[in-house]
Structures are given as C-alpha cells and as structure tokens.
C-alpha cells in the first residue's frame, strides 16, 4: 500500500483545510511538527471545497490552499470543487 501526503504550514488559515481533509478522509492521519502539519493517507486523499466552506462558513476558492501548501506527493486531479491526490493514472 502506498501513501499519498500533503503538508501545510501550521497556521490559522490552513487549520480549517486540515480539519476538512480529516473529516472527509477517515484513513488520513495528521502529523504535527514545528510549523508544519503533514497529512498521510493510503492510496487517495480528497480536499473538497464544500467541506472547507462548511468549516469556515464562507465561500472558499480551492486555489487558496496553495498559499499555505508546503509539499505533496501523488498524482493530482483537480477542478473547482475538489483536489484529489492518488497514485492512479
């Protein structure tokens, strides 16, 4: 089994994104290190716009994740509503 991961700067802006990811991906595990939060997940990890919006109570443009995005691994599939990391082609 191979993991995908995504890491954000640990700050106020990325917290609702991290919470949304953890809520949407039951197998995801967040690892906190100084200034950084890295989320590992087997096979596939999804960031959903609607889930982030539910966390912050406002509209959210998924491109805003890039402000605090540090690194990621996996093939990306993204549109306006979701951002998916996986190893499928």
């Amino acid at each position: 089994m191979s993991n995908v991961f995504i890491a954000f700067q640990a700050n106020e802006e990325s917290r609702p994104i991290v919470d949304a990811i953890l809520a949407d991906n039951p197998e995801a595990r967040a690892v906190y290190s100084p200034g950084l939060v890295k989320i590992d997940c087997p096979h596939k990890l999804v960031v959903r716009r609607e889930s982030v919006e539910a966390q912050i109570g406002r509209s959210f443009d998924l491109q805003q994740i890039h402000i605090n995005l540090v690194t990621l691994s996996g093939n990306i599939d993204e549109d306006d509503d979701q951002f998916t990391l996986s190893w499928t082609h």
Partner: protein
Amino acid sequence: MTTIDLQSREIKPLRNTFDHVARLIGGDKPASRYQEATLGAQPTANFHYRPTWEPQYELFDASRSAVKLADWYVLRDPRQYYYATWTMARARQQEAVESNYQFVDSRKLLAKLPDAVRAHVCAVMMPLRHVAWAGNMNNCFIAAYGYGTALTAAATFHAMDHLGVAQYLTRLGLALDEPGVLEAGKNDWLGDPRWQVLRRHVEDTLVLKDPMEIHVAHNLALDGLLYPLIYGSFVDDHLATRGGTAIAMLTSFMPEWHDESARWVDAVVKVAAAESSENQALIAGWARTWGDRVMAALAPVAEIALGAEGQQALAAARETYDARCRKAGLLA
C-alpha cells in the same frame, strides 16, 4: 573545526487557548481566531456606575432586550468574521467593484444608457442611500446596547457594511449624473409622498430600544424585502432588459453582500428563537409585524421602480422572506 548541528526542536505549548475561551468551547483545545476574538470578550462585572440617563440598566445589560438567553455567546456568526477575515473579504469585494467600474468606464457603458433609464435609476436608487444610512445607525445601536460580543461584533461589521452600501449608491449617482441627483434623492426622501411610508417606517425603527427587535425589524424584515425587490426584480430583471446591465455591474456588491449577511441574520434569530417558546413567540411576532409594515412601506416604492408589475415583485419578495422565516423556525 566546529560543526554546527541544526535540529528542529518541538516546543509543546502549555495550553492551547485562553481559559475564558476554553470554558466556552468545552476544554483546552486549539481555538479558531474567531473564537478567541469573540468568546469571553463581553464585559460582565464590576461596572461602577449605572448610565445616568437610564439608571434601571447596567452599562452592559442583557435585559435591554426582551429576548432571554442563558448564554449570549450562542449567537455565533456562521461566517466567523472577526476583524481580519471581515476586512479581507470586503477588500476583495471592493477590488471586484473597482474593476467593474473600470470596465463600465472604459467602454463608456453609462453614456450609452438611455436617458429615461438613467433618470429612472436615480429616482429609485438615490433615496435608498438614506435607508442604508439608517441601517448603519440601527446596527450601531445593536453594537452599543446589545449583549455578547458574538452579536455586537457582527453588528459592528454589519453597520459598516451598510455604510459601504450607502457609499456605493452615492458613487453610482455621481457616475450617472451631476451631484444634483443626490440632492434630488434626498428631497424625494423628505418630500415625495410615495417615499414617506418607507421613511416613517425607517424612522420608527430608529427609535426602537430593544437591540434584538431592531435586528428583526431592519436586518431581517426591511433588508430581507428591500434587497430582493430592488437588486433582484428592479436591477437584475427590469433594468437588464432595458439596456441597464451596467447598473447591475456597478451594484454587484449589494446582492452579493445581502446573500452572505443573510446567513448571519438568520442564524441569530434562529438560535435565539430555538432557546425557548417565549423567545420564539416574541421574535416570530416581530418578524410578522415588521414584515407586514415593510410590505406596506415598500408598496409605493415597488410602484416607482416597476410600475404595474411592482406588487407582483413585492409579493415574490415576501415569499422569499416567509421562506427564510420558516427556515429559522419563526413561521409554522
């Protein structure tokens, strides 16, 4: 030779948030900036003197409202606005309006507006500056005399938003015509019999004393019926088919802001009404009474804006309003 060994060392914070926030979110866990900026900020004790003009109340006194809540912090803002998030959201919207103005300017869209449409827009929208200003005053009152930072902070933002709407209307008037249109709008507001019902209604809300009643009377009832009528039926439907699309661009902030802030307005009344049947009866009564009064006040305005179709548009706005009230548990 010395080698420098760089390591990262993790320093665990001793606590995740302030005690007064932890008490309200169920223990010591990371709190959002909204929670830290809002919860526990209301002064509650050690007031030395009572206001000389109203000695029956403390300086901050929940009993100024007939609505009773065990904890006023339950009236959270679903948008989670605190100063930073609110200013950033509004700055983004201001940039959007600014670029709309540039677009309209560069293509001289306002010069191409038929004169009759231009005069019609001024006649309908310039007096509304005064309604928006009353919205500023009313929300300042809620901020000053309401209880609980969750409610009063959001009311402060709402007050400034109303001022912004008034300024956008002013700017629209100045873009459309000479500064005299502002004066003409004020004269209509003060003298034209068709505006006097609305003016009386607005001035009646300005002398209300209960912050929650003001919230229902202005933020829910008046704005809830006015915005769909003006920015929906008039600007988007009526003007757009008569060559006035530019007006929709220059007022794009208003309907967008109304939809966004309606979520806060509804959340406040919904949560307050859900706490007890007394609150529910009280707030539902206000929503009904003020809703009916606004309908009467807007009838002549709908006529000015849309002519014979005005009453139909107003009835549609009322349906939207009733649906909101039902969702908030104010209507069966």
